[in-house]
């Protein structure tokens, strides 16, 4: 078990900056997720920690030791690849035993360890087969078993669930999390899937275009997104954004979206005078939009364009002139295409972003 620390890590490929002055620290036994869309630099970070890629700048510490110049074989790190990279010419047993054999473990100890990890991952029945014929989920387990067998200091997982179908993914998600809790293994997990990150991670680092956007617990990144990117990337259905400006009228702070206005006087403490007249982006999650078929006080009129009955809830798409909103309604909510509805926002869950810097204000 170990800690990992990276400072000012930077990597360029030609002119493209893949990772830009990144710093973070993963503590012992933590499940740390790196979340971001394709091209955010997630894989590059893992590869640099593993030693497969040389950083252009910055330092990597494993257990407080600088490892920039240590060969990958000597870092005592395990990694699973997106392509899994199992050795197709060997049996599953030999695949898992390979790292131990290279380290010259005695045969009986290898045997014991391989069987132990195989039963932990429920692949004992596969040991004498080649991995080529295994199913997607099984291959995934074999790759994890091979990584875990020598109890590495840090386990790096690169989008391990991206190649398996949705149902199995849900199951594997739970299993991986349970495994980690049991073994107290330090894990750095890269994924583009916010649901995976939210459900498994102790902390999430949200990345975009090589830059760190926010680090925090799942609760923090969901409820207190640091900027527009984080707010839009996390949560499904995605958060609604509405262009608006901040103004003052008769001592009230008013958010003007053109089609409607909201009174933000309650947020006086964070909304300094210098923000008045500025262009803003209001963010509200679909579950914080209440929809009613009856006209109500302070409610905004809109038109239904699509009702998505998802079973456990209904996602309703509403237009207010040219603003498109998604709202989560109770599961039995139904409305005709084009019918009128009235919308209210949960003001305590409102987010406000500066339109230029995209940083969160509220």
């Amino acid at each position, binding site marked *: 078990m170990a800690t990992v620390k990276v400072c000012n890590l930077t990597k360029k490929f030609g002119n493209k900056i893949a990772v830009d002055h990144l710093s973070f620290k993963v503590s012992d036994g933590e499940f740390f997720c790196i979340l971001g869309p394709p091209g955010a630099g997630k894989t590059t970070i893992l590869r640099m920690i593993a030693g497969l890629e040389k950083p252009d700048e910055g330092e990597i510490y494993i257990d407080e030791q*600088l490892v920039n110049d240590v060969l990958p074989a000597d870092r005592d790190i395990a990694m699973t690849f997106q392509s899994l990279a199992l050795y197709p010419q060997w049996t599953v047993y030999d695949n898992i035993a390979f790292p131990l054999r290279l380290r010259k473990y005695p045969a009986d100890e290898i045997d014991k360890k391989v069987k132990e990890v195989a039963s932990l991952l429920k692949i004992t029945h596969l040991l004498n087969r080649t991995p080529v014929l295994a199913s997607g989920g099984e291959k995934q387990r074999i790759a994890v078993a091979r990584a875990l067998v020598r109890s590495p200091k840090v386990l790096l997982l690169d989008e391990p669930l991206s190649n398996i179908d949705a149902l199995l993914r849900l199951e594997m998600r739970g299993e991986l999390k349970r495994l980690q809790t049991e073994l107290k293994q330090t894990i750095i997990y890269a994924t583009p899937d916010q649901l995976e990150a939210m459900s498994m991670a102790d902390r999430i680092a949200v990345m975009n275009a090589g830059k760190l956007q926010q680090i925090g617990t799942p609760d923090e990144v969901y409820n207190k997104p640091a900027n527009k990117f984080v707010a839009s990337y996390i949560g499904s259905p995605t958060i609604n954004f509405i262009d608006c400006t901040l103004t003052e009228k008769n001592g009230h702070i008013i958010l003007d979206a053109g089609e409607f206005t909201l009174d933000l006087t309650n947020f006086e403490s964070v909304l300094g005078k210098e923000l008045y007249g500025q262009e803003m982006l209001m963010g509200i999650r679909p579950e914080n939009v209440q929809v009613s078929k009856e006209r109500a006080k302070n409610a905004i009129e809109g038109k239904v364009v699509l009702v998505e009955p998802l079973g456990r809830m209904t996602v309703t798409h509403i237009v207010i002139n040219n603003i498109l909103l998604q709202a989560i309604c109770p599961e039995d909510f139904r409305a005709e295409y084009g019918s009128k509805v009235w919308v209210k926002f949960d003001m305590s869950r409102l987010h406000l972003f500066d339109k230029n810097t995209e940083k969160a204000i509220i």
Partner: protein
Amino acid sequence: MQNKPVSWYKRPEKFALLLIIPLQIIMNLVGLFPLIAEIYVSFTDWSPTSGEWYLARFIGLENYYRVFFRDRLFWEAIGRTLFLTVICVFTEFLLGLGLALLFTDNFFGKRFFTSAILLPMMVVPAATGYMFFMMFQKDGPVNAILSLITGQSIKVDWFVHGDTAMFTIYLADVWQWTPFMFLLMLSGLLALPQDPINAAKVLGASRLQVFRHVILPMMKPLIAIALLLRGIEAFKMFDAAYIMTHGGPGTATQTVSMYMLEIGFRAWRLGYVAAEALLIVLAMLLFAWFIVRPIFLKR
């Protein structure tokens, strides 16, 4: 962990170097050094019968001057080779593509027909030469079969006339290399994405329209590579043709390779041939760099 000494050959860069050094040695020994010698020799009148190459008389640019202004046979051979190359490759391409189109879906005997069509390209070219030499003899099977079909006694002496001799060379090349084009075109056709083809069908296109508007444009890059590779190979044309005609009658079927063999290794004017070889290498280098490389690297 970090201060453990690492054996030098385990460093990736060093290991890579170790792997590639044998190649460098052998390619430079047999490639680079002789090239330098050749450049020198091309400025002399060296002939192995007259002594060692470094003792030969230095004659400056005379060899090059002769190539350009005094050697009609050389340029005729070039023209002839280019002509053969163009018509052979063109025929092979049309036949190969046509045949490949018949193999895009499954039918009874597909494996047999594929293997049968591929067989000619696996015959050693020298053997092909002898095969066609036998077939086109005056008393050979081709004349016999033609007689049988036409009912008249046909006794064409194929190798005695320049035109008919050229024709047999053309036939031999087409026979041997159409299978290669077929194989290339077939692998191209099989690798095509099926969706655009089906899309065109559903939009109402007939088979011919699908071929013209969808398949052909999608095959373009592969066709370019196929024509290039085959063209380069055809320009080297030697083995079969040499066995069939030895360049004759006279010089009527002499290709560039045959001509250079004649001058260099029968008349032993190696200094002069060195100059010719260098010119061809130079032409090929330019061709490779500006035409082949862009097409090849696109893949």
